C-alpha cells in the first residue's frame, strides 16, 4: 500500500476554510455582495478564483443579483457559490426558490449574525435556522448543513457541493460568527482523499432528453446550457420537458419528485457526530460553535459522574429524525442549547412527541453559550 501523502496544514479562519473546501470541491464561480461576518469568504475568493483554471469571481450589485448570477452560472455548467449573512439571506430567498424549482445546484453560505433586521452585525447567533428551512415561499425541500469548527468548515463545504451536485439542489451551509472567525490549524486533504461529486450529464441524444424527467434517483441529468440540449427552464410549475403546466397530475409529479429526491436519501444526507451517546441518560443536541461548548460540558459531566452525551448535528434539515429516535431509546433528557430563542428545539420537540424531557438553553445577546451554562443544565438531569 502506498504511504498516505502528508496533508498540507494551514492555520486558517473558518471563512478561509470554506473557500479552501469550495475550491477543492471544484467551485469555479462565485457571485456575491459583501456583508459582515461573511465578507472574508468573498475577499479570499476574489484573490483566489482569478488565479485558478476557469475561475470566475464577480461582485454583483446586491444579493438578489448574486443569486441570479450564480443560478445562471450553475445552469451554464459551473459549480457555484455565494456567501452572505442575515439581511442578504432574506434578499436571496426569491431566487433561492427559483433554484429549487429549476433544480440548479448551488451552495449558499450564511454566516449568521444577530438579528432580526440589521441587528448585531458582528456578534454570533444561530437565529436563521428556521429561515433556512422556510425562507422562500411555497412548499420546498432544502438541505441545510452546519459546521462547528474550522476543519469542518472545509469538510462540510465539500459535502455541501457534493450534495448540491448529487441532488441537483441548493444546499445552505449555516455558520455562526464564532466558527467563521476562529483561526485553527486544519488539514487540507490531498486530491483523491475525498469524494468529489459532479452533476450527471445526459448520455442520450438531445432529441430524447427531457430535462425534468422522472429517474430512479429522482434527479434528472443536467447538461450545461449550450451543449446541444436546448431545453426550457422556468420557475413555473412545469412538465418533464420543462414547459409550464397547470395540470394537477404534472404539478404533483414535479413537486413530489423534488421532495422525494432528497427525502429518500436521508441516510446519505442526514449527518451527525455522536459523542458518548450510546449509554447516555442526558443527551445534548447542538450544532455550530455551540456544539464545541457542549462537547466540553459533556466531558465535564462525565467527570462528574453523569452519563452525558452529545449529538452534534451537521445536517440541520432534513432534520436527523432517525438519529434522534435512536437516542430517545434511552435518554431521559435532551438538552438543546442554541444561540437563538429555540429554533432547532422545535424540531427536537416535534420528533420527541413528549417522550424525553426537553430542556432548552437560549442566548440572544450576541454571546456564545458557554460550556458551564450547558454543564449546569446537564447536571440538573
Amino acid at each position, binding site marked *: 500500500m502506498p504511504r498516505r501523502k502528508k496533508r498540507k496544514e494551514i492555520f486558517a479562519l473558518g471563512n478561509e476554510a470554506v473557500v479552501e473546501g469550495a475550491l477543492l470541491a471544484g467551485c469555479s*464561480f462565485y*457571485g456575491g455582495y459583501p456583508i459582515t461576518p461573511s465578507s472574508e469568504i468573498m475577499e479570499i475568493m476574489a484573490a483566489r478564483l*482569478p*488565479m485558478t483554471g476557469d*475561475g*470566475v469571481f*464577480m461582485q*454583483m*450589485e*446586491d444579493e*438578489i*443579483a*448574486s*443569486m*441570479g*448570477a*450564480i*443560478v*445562471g*452560472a*450553475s*445552469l*451554464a*455548467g*459551473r459549480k*457555484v457559490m455565494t456567501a452572505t449573512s442575515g439581511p442578504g439571506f432574506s434578499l436571496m430567498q*426569491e*431566487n433561492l426558490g*427559483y433554484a429549487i424549482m*429549476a433544480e440548479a445546484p448551488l451552495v449558499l453560505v450564511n454566516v449568521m449574525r444577530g438579528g432580526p433586521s440589521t441587528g448585531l452585525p458582528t456578534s454570533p447567533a444561530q437565529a436563521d435556522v428556521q429561515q433556512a428551512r422556510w425562507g422562500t415561499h411555497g412548499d420546498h425541500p432544502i438541505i441545510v448543513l452546519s459546521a462547528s469548527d474550522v476543519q469542518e468548515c472545509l469538510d462540510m463545504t465539500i459535502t455541501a457541493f457534493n450534495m448540491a451536485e448529487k441532488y441537483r439542489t441548493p444546499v445552505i451551509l449555516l455558520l455562526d460568527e464564532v466558527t467563521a472567525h476562529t483561526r485553527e490549524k486544519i488539514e487540507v486533504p490531498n486530491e483523491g482523499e475525498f469524494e468529489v461529486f459532479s452533476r450527471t450529464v445526459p448520455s442520450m441524444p438531445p432529441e430524447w432528453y427531457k430535462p425534468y424527467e422522472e429517474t430512479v434517483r429522482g434527479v434528472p441529468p443536467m447538461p*450545461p*446550457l*449550450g*451543449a*446541444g440540449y*436546448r*431545453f*426550457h*427552464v*422556468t*420557475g*413555473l410549475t412545469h412538465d418533464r*420537458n420543462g*414547459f*409550464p403546466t397547470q395540470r394537477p397530475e404534472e404539478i404533483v409529479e414535479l413537486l413530489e419528485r423534488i421532495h422525494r429526491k432528497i427525502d429518500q436519501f436521508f441516510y446519505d444526507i442526514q449527518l451527525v457526530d455522536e459523542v458518548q451517546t450510546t449509554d447516555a441518560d442526558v443527551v445534548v443536541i447542538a450544532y455550530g460553535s455551540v456544539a464545541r461548548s457542549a462537547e466540553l460540558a459533556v466531558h465535564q459531566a462525565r467527570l462528574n459522574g453523569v452519563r452525558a452525551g452529545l449529538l452534534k448535528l451537521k445536517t440541520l434539515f432534513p432534520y436527523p429524525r432517525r438519529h434522534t429516535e435512536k437516542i430517545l431509546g434511552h435518554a431521559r433528557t435532551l438538552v438543546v442549547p442554541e444561540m437563538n430563542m429555540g429554533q432547532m428545539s422545535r424540531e427536537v420537540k416535534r420528533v420527541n412527541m413528549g417522550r424525553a424531557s426537553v430542556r432548552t438553553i437560549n442566548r440572544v445577546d450576541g454571546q456564545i453559550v458557554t460550556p458551564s451554562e450547558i454543564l449546569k443544565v446537564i447536571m440538573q438531569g
Partner: protein
Amino acid sequence: MNGLTGNDVIHQYLRHNKKFPHVLCPGCGHGIVLGTLIRSIHALSIPKDDIVVVAGIGCSGRLAVYVDFNTVHTTHGRALTFATGIKMANPKLKVIALMGDGDALSIGGNHLIHAARRNIGVTALVLNNSIYGMTGGQSSPATPEGATTMTNPYGQLDKAFDTVELARGAGANYVARGTVFHVKKLEKIMIEALGRPGFSLVEAITPCHTQYGRKNKFKTPVDMYQWLKKSAIDVERYEELADDKREGRLPIGVFFRRDRNGYEERYYAMKEALTGKGAKGGRK
C-alpha cells in the same frame, strides 16, 4: 433551412412540441419582436445551440418557451442577473435578455443600470408596451404621464423613464430603439446589437391593446399600429426638429455606440495576464 424565406424560416425556429398559437393576445406586438429576433439570429447564422434566451416574468417573458434555443424563464426583474452569470460562465454563448418594460425598468432597474455600467456582453431586449400586461394592466415606469391604468385610474402622475437616456446615463455601450411597425429597421438594429461587444440595449416599442390601448382611446390593435406608424421618426431627423415639433414624436434608430470591451473579455484578459500561459501565480 437556408432555402426558406419569411415565416417558413421562423417556423424552423419554433418549438414543435409547444402549442400554437402562443398565449399572447390578438395583435400583441411581442410576437413580432420574437419573429424579428429569430430572423436576426438566422441572418447572422448563429447556431441555435449557442443562443441563450434569458427571459423575465411578464407576457414578454412567456415568449422564451416558444423558441428552440436554450431558454431560461427567470424571476420578475432578474433576467439580466442570470444572463450575467451565464455569459461569465461561458463567454462563447450569445446571451439575449428578453424583458418587459416593468421587468426591465421597474423591479429590474438596478440590474439594467449595472449591466450597462459593467458592460457585460449581453443583448438586452426591452419589449416596451407601456404597461404591465401579464398582471392585468397596471402602470409601469414606461406608462406615459396622464395615461389611465388599473393603478392610475385618475391618470398616471409619474413621468415615464426614457429608456435611452437611462441607459446612456448608466454608461451603456450601445442603445437603440425600434418599433414593431418598423420591423425591417428593428431587424437591422438587432443584427447590429447581436454583433457588438459588451452590453447592447434594444428597446422595442410594442403595443398592448388589451391592457393599455383599450383604456387609452385605441379602439383596436390596428389603431395602435397606426399610431406607431405616425409617431415614429428616425432619430437623425428627430434631432433636426425644432423643440415644439418634437412633441408626440418617437425617435427610433441607434442613439449611440461606444467601444468598450465586454466585461467578460476584460475579466478573462485579466486572468490571462495573472496566470500567464498556464503558469500559476500572478505578475501583478
